[in-house]
């Protein structure tokens, strides 16, 4: 008898995505078996997406505090101090699985979701960024459609909602063929006194739902995101949400107007697992209970079951915890914007999460138990491919005959070429704060009414992390910070997006753990605490396997004076070109190996985090001293690509003389870390070299900016590169077009 019963129920909880031991645990918490509604609550809250079951234990490695950190992880977004009693708040979020199935809507709702996280902090959203990873489009077809739909979706949402999309990255590898990555980031600005929290304090206070009606959209999206992406599955179609940026714009206006008054004690956006997770989180933070009547929730569809209402992921909704008696005042403001604000429940003192339907209790569980998702610390195992790839030696590849051709190929390569095709579809100027628009190392926004600004970047390198998850992750943080300092910004903090395969596979778990350690180490060294993040696991398909381990770093920095804003393009002829940092004979993991030799192999270039810190401090110092006219970090494609980029963006050429005894390809295209290319007038250049020597940094004048429009690089009297800038520009500018050409 009991055996039979267990057999039947096993199906129910397993179908909901819970393991046997999780089911046992929740019945222990409840002191009884759950009903369908209660089971749905646990299934959602204990999913990887909401409960961070595999990642939470690893977060302890992160540095999360610092003098500028006002709010670390734990709220909707972290907050950093940018002086003058002003703060910015930022976070990134993935929308990978929805984007794989319905790329336009998936990407659009990803943008909408992260904007609401920022709004929930009380901030005005001032900038969006996105990091996209796709398979190679190769021949026409599915991937190309995915790319253009994702970009279209991001553009439509961001443009309509009026938040400028100021930066990001697009990277390609067939590791993402079956499972593209779409991560969106948003930055908000506010006065320090305007900060809101996601907390349900004050017994008797009302829970109000504002914004869109609730339908069956995104049913089970949280648990959907915590599964492998199977072949197209009809059941998952309910997981498609449709975004309405117009509604979001109204929501922003109305919420910020309400926040001006003293009506609201807590705010939470409704993301994964909708009403449920937003209310559980706010209640848990306050140590309170809540009671919600699903009958009160304004709905778009008929006959919705209580658990459907609770976990629906209909977009453009927020939860407000409103002071008792202020409900009408709140509603009045929303009404002005043609929106509703409806009381759906209230805060209680019994610590229970109670779901009612027309006043009748249909589910009741302790709030703490929903927040207490079991976590898993697994045993990682080094992936087998690392033995082979680490064994790579430079002399396994032949030096190409025509280095000019190599440079042009790299400039046109998918990861390196201009992404103007993408960002010209994004309004990057609305709100009138964009000082440095997309196309440079970091986007820079001014803060109105002040002489300061912020730098924003988003970076990743799946190939690096595939070849060395720990050092690869370190390198990404270091690169992000380099992008900040060369732009004149002092790195402040990061948010991370952990995109990995199925963590239950020991090799993937290893990648996850090592990447987190790498991020953590670099953040400590560079003093950029982790103030928030997002995990997207189970990114794999039966056909293509797991994605590259892809941690994505969103970073912000502070530009103390807009005078410090520096861009990559050369400014004046006869300026001297300076290289800071050591060029080693490193080909491993490079874009060059991948594009020219078709090899994803070797080890990630060495990285000395202490030296990195010293070099970055130095760069920022000389920029602030006004010695630097242009600055660019050396990244994908190495020295030759960086030099060409600084020429392409300007009207000048460059004549460079090197004298290093090493393979020409390593010299030109190797990706040795901690290197910067600057230009400066000759007096300043002299000072820069002296100052660098004082700091013990390797620095040298390597050439001159020329009126003649050629990129010329010689090494020890041998001319390695000589190409008209126009040809470089053409290769760089048309790379993406070629990728997307339909015939």
């Amino acid at each position: 008898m009991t055996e039979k019963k267990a057999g039947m129920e096993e199906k129910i909880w397993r179908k909901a995505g819970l393991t046997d031991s999780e089911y046992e645990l929740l019945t222990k918490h409840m002191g009884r078996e759950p009903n369908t509604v209660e089971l749905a609550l646990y299934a959602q809250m204990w999913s990887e997406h909401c409960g961070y079951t595999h990642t939470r234990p690893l977060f302890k490695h992160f540095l999360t505090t610092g003098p500028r950190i006002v709010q670390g992880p734990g709220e909707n977004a972290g907050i950093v101090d940018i002086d003058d009693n002003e703060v910015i708040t930022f976070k990134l979020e993935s929308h990978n699985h929805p984007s794989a199935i319905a790329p336009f809507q998936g990407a659009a709702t990803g943008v909408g979701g992260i904007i609401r996280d920022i709004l929930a902090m009380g901030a005005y959203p001032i900038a969006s960024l996105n990091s996209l990873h796709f398979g190679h489009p190769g021949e026409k077809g599915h991937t190309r459609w995915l790319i253009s739909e994702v970009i279209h979706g991001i553009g439509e949402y961001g443009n309509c909602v009026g938040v400028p999309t100021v930066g990001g990255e697009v990277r390609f590898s067939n590791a993402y063929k079956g499972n593209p990555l779409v991560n969106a980031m948003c930055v908000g600005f506010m006065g320090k006194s305007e900060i809101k929290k996601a907390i349900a304090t004050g017994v008797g206070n009302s829970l109000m739902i504002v914004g869109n009606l609730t339908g069956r959209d995104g049913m089970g999206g949280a648990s959907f995101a915590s599964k492998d992406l199977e072949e197209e599955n009809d059941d998952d179609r309910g997981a498609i949400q449709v975004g309405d940026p117009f509604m979001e714009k109204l929501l922003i206006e109305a919420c910020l107007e309400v926040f001006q008054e003293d009506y609201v004690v807590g705010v939470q956006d409704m993301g994964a697992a909708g009403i449920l997770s937003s209310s559980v989180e706010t209640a848990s933070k306050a140590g309170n209970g809540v009671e919600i009547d699903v009958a009160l929730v304004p709905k778009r569809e008929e006959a919705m079951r209580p658990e459907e209402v609770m976990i629906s992921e209909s977009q453009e909704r927020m939860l407000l915890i409103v002071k008792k008696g202020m409900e009408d005042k709140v509603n009045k403001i929303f009404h002005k914007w043609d929106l509703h604000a409806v009381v759906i429940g209230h805060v209680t003192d019994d610590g229970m999460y109670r779901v009612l339907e027309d006043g009748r209790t249909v589910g009741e569980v302790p709030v703490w138990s929903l927040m207490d998702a079991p976590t898993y610390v697994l045993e990682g195992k080094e992936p087998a491919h690392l033995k082979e790839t680490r064994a790579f030696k430079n002399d396994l590849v032949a030096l190409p005959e025509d280095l000019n051709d190599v440079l042009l190929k790299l400039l046109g390569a998918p990861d390196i070429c201009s992404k103007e095709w993408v960002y010209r579809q994004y309004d990057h100027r609305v709100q009138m704060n964009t000082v440095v628009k997309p196309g440079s190392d970091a986007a820079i926004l001014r803060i109105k009414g002040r002489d300061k600004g912020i730098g924003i970047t988003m970076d990743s390198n799946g190939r690096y992390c595939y070849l060395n998850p720990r050092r690869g992750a370190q390198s990404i943080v270091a690169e992000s910070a380099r992008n900040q300092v060369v732009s004149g910004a002092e790195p402040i903090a990061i948010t991370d997006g952990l995109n990995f395969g199925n963590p239950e596979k020991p090799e993937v778990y290893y990648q996850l753990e090592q990447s987190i350690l790498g991020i953590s180490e670099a953040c400590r060294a560079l003093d950029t605490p982790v103030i928030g993040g997002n995990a997207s696991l189970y990114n794999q398909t039966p056909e293509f396997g797991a994605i590259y381990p892809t941690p994505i770093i969103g970073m912000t920095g502070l530009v103390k004076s807009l005078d410090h804003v520096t861009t990559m393009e050369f400014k004046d002829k006869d300026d001297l070109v300076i290289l800071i940092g050591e060029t080693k004979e490193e080909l491993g993991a490079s874009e060059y190996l991948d594009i020219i030799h078709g090899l994803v192999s070797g080890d990630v270039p060495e990285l000395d985090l202490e030296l990195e810190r010293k070099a970055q401090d130095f760069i920022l110092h000389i920029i602030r001293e006004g010695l630097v006219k242009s600055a660019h970090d050396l990244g994908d494609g190495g020295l030759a690509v960086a030099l060409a980029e600084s020429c392409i963006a300007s009207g000048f050429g460059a004549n460079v003389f090197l004298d290093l005894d090493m393979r020409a390809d390593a010299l030109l295209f190797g990706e040795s870390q901690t290197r910067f290319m600057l230009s400066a007038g000759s007096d300043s250049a002299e000072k820069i070299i002296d100052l660098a020597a004082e700091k013990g940094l390797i620095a040298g004048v390597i050439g001159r900016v020329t009126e003649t429009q050629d990129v010329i690089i010689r090494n020890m009297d041998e001319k390695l590169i000589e190409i008209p800038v126009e040809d470089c520009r053409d290769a760089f500018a048309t790379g993406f077009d070629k990728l997307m050409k339909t015939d």
Partner: protein
Amino acid sequence: MNWGVLLFPGSNCAEDCFHAVDQILGKPVKYLWHKDTELGDVDAIIIPGGFSYGDHLRPGAIAHLSPAMLAVKEFAAAGGLVIGICNGFQILTESRMLPGSLLQNRGLKFLCQDQTLKVDNPDTPFTSEYDAGDVVVFPIAHNEGNYYAAPETIAEMEANGQILFRYCNADGEVSDSTNPNGSIHSIAGIINRTGNVVGMMPHPERSADIVLGLNEGKGVFVSMLKHLEANHG
């Protein structure tokens, strides 16, 4: 001299226009609300860019039926200065205050870029700060900026000097290849026959604050200001 910025649900450049008048021109400005039937004491009205009503159906299709638009028509009929920028232009054509219509860009994509424009008619209250043939840079950011009007209408507008700006290249050449969106005759901005209502797709307000690297658009606001001041004595 009061300026008004008309606010619709979904307008997202209203604050930018407000900023241009308030901070760049240093003149008094207030928001006007789409549900208002009286506009109060204003001397010039800016209908800002954005996505009024989400651009659902057609850009401007729902907004132009707002109560405030009747008041705007009355204001314009009495000779008041009205400028519609981007979505504001679309609203003005939908309301028939300006001829023609704005279709989807011929490239079928939203287009955001710093655009060179040629000043065609400097003899209006909106362009007096420029000389004929001046090449200026204003950003564009639109999906439906492809201006269309029937051939007779276009001929009439050309004859009346109703074209204010055309898309061109850095040398001021106007040709099909310098036309970003397919607009007929490369039209970027127009004025009504009585010379007091303007619609333009490019954003002069985004080209008014030198901190952002562009400020040639400021001339549009300065022209309007000078006209207002001259006429108020």
